């Protein structure tokens, strides 16, 4: 188990229920009873398919939405209690997000430098020489400042824009970075560069990253810990290697069977139906009634039943 002082953020029993409609409201449970710790300088992968609730968890941590139940403890304090302006600003100073589409993050009418100007305007950053700090941060992410600053977003590639946002996070010295499908829109040849950079920044600056992805291979490549989500529930949690070597939940197993890999072909005789997993998971929960969330080995827990 992680020592307490290494824990940067602690997510406890997080639940988010969305309500839609007024007269006959329908309730959607986007996340239910999600708990995990984020350790300093570590990368944790949050893996799941569309609708699994992984982005909801990211949004809850970024305080973009409020939880229905449960709490997120950062620096000994529930973030739900952060209300006044200076405290909120303080929180965003240390907890930031980078999202899938870099072109949506940048305002196309402004030069890219604006993302740096904005943080210097909004936060009290402690740098003697602002321009030098920006240039250093850009070098840190393998960008040449002379070829980056002063450009408009459309003049740079998606990979360069994502690097720029990582540079911004480094400049702010953030504690927790939520990287939601950070590299999904990038090409195979450039995405690895951005990933490597993310890991290096993490180790070098002691930044923690929640890497939200649907791609198991990428999750395995960069993370120390993994969380597998399915229909709003955390179904498997723990050491990345252990989960990958000893996948126990039927949903995790299905993900492994489906992921395409060079050097290993899908079994052509096996009839693979994406719908099948719903029944498999139900059977699994039925057979293990009442067991709940169990640690099956050190640093590897599995959800055996959802009741």
């Amino acid at each position, binding site marked *: 188990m992680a020592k307490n002082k290494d824990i940067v953020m602690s997510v406890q029993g997080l639940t988010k229920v969305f309500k839609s409609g007024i007269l006959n409201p329908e309730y959607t449970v986007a996340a239910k009873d999600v708990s995990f710790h984020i350790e300093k300088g570590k990368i944790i992968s949050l893996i799941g*398919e*569309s609708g699994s609730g992984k982005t909801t968890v990211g949004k809850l941590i970024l305080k973009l939405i409020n939880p229905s139940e449960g709490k997120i403890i950062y620096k000994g304090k529930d973030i739900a209690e952060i209300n006044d302006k200076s405290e909120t600003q303080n929180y965003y100073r240390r907890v930031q997000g980078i999202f899938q589409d870099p072109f949506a993050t940048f305002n196309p009418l402004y030069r890219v430098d604006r993302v740096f100007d904005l943080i210097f305007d909004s936060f009290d950053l402690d740098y003697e020489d602002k321009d030098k700090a920006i240039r250093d941060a850009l070098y840190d992410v393998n960008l040449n400042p002379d070829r980056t600053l002063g450009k408009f977003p459309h003049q740079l*590639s998606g*990979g*360069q824009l994502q690097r720029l946002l990582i540079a911004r996070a480094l400049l702010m010295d953030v504690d927790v970075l939520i990287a939601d499908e950070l590299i999904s829109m990038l*090409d*195979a*040849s*450039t*995405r*690895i*560069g951005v*990933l*490597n950079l993310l*890991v290096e920044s993490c180790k070098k600056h002691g930044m923690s990253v929640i890497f939200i992805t*649907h*791609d*198991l*291979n*990428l999750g*395995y*490549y*960069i993370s120390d810990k993994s969380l597998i989500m399915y229909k709003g529930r955390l179904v498997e949690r723990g050491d*990345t*290697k252990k989960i*990958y070597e000893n996948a126990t939940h039927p949903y995790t197993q*299905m*993900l*492994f*069977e*489906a*992921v*395409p*890999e*060079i*050097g290993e*072909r*899908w079994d*052509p005789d096996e009839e*693979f*139906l*994406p*719908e099948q*997993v719903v029944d498999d998971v139900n059977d699994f929960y039925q057979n293990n009634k009442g067991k709940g969330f169990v640690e099956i080995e050190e640093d590897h827990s599995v959800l055996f039943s959802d009741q």
Partner: protein
Amino acid sequence: MSENILEVKNLKAYYDILKGQVKAVDDVTFNLKKGEILGLAGESGCGKSTLASSFISRKKPLKYISGEVDLVGNKIMEMSEKEFKKLRLSTISLIPQYALDAFSPTKKIKTYIADLARQHGIKTDKKFFNKVKERLDLVNLDESVLNRYSIELSGGMKQRVIMVISTILDPEFLIADEITSALDVSSQRFVATMLANLRDLGIIKSSIFITHDLSILYQIADRIMIMYAGNFAEIGPTDEIVDNPRHPYTRALIDSLPKVGIQYKDKRLSGIDGTPPHLLNIGEGCRFRHRCPYAIDKCEETPQREQVAEDHYVSCWRWKELGSDLSGQK
């Protein structure tokens, strides 16, 4: 040569824009055999989708420059739009990228299919819908989807409906552009396998499967073609391309793929430095030379397409001498 469904010779298709010509497909030669799934891979902007649309419709600003395309005896580049229309859906069919988003939100799936069929002069009688239902069953969808709206279906289900529609007339040649890209891994596997099944059942005779994801092509493609910045780079049988690539770009592309079992802590994967060149007025020379670790002076000249082995061609000046250098590392 009758066993080829498609023969493409020195095809050039450029985008004519105010600033000049964007050479998106520049001198591409390949063939597609009967019963074959050819995977077409490359980075964004390499011309893979342009190649596909140059077969189907050559709307402005895309302009056909030169070269020949023979589709089961039809010289499609010389055909008028009116003649070509007869081939659409029955001989050649395209599943475009983002087809998932093309469903009308206000129409039931049934209406949508019927509209499409009527456009192609097909009678939408009971017989037709029985065939549709048969095909839906084939892709494991219940016929009740016909009475649903597109928003009620998941991405994977919509993609399956699209596959049913685009193959309803048993086309000889199906172009599948990024059909798995927007899907979850579980649906990805199903849809990709489905494409191979349709071929095995003889519903389609051949297919070009365009994707940026080599690991999916490895699963179902018979041969793989790699394009880089509008140029042909390499084509060959899938195992040859993966195990013995001859083009430095193919090697780099394979090396940049993460695999389960490789962690950053243990082994660092490498990407390719730099970005692809802009295709506007690009000029002579191998287009990969600025990012290629093996580039020499000779690469300032455009390399010729050379045969490596049966069905295996490459465009690289140094493929002979590099030979085992490229296949060695893994």
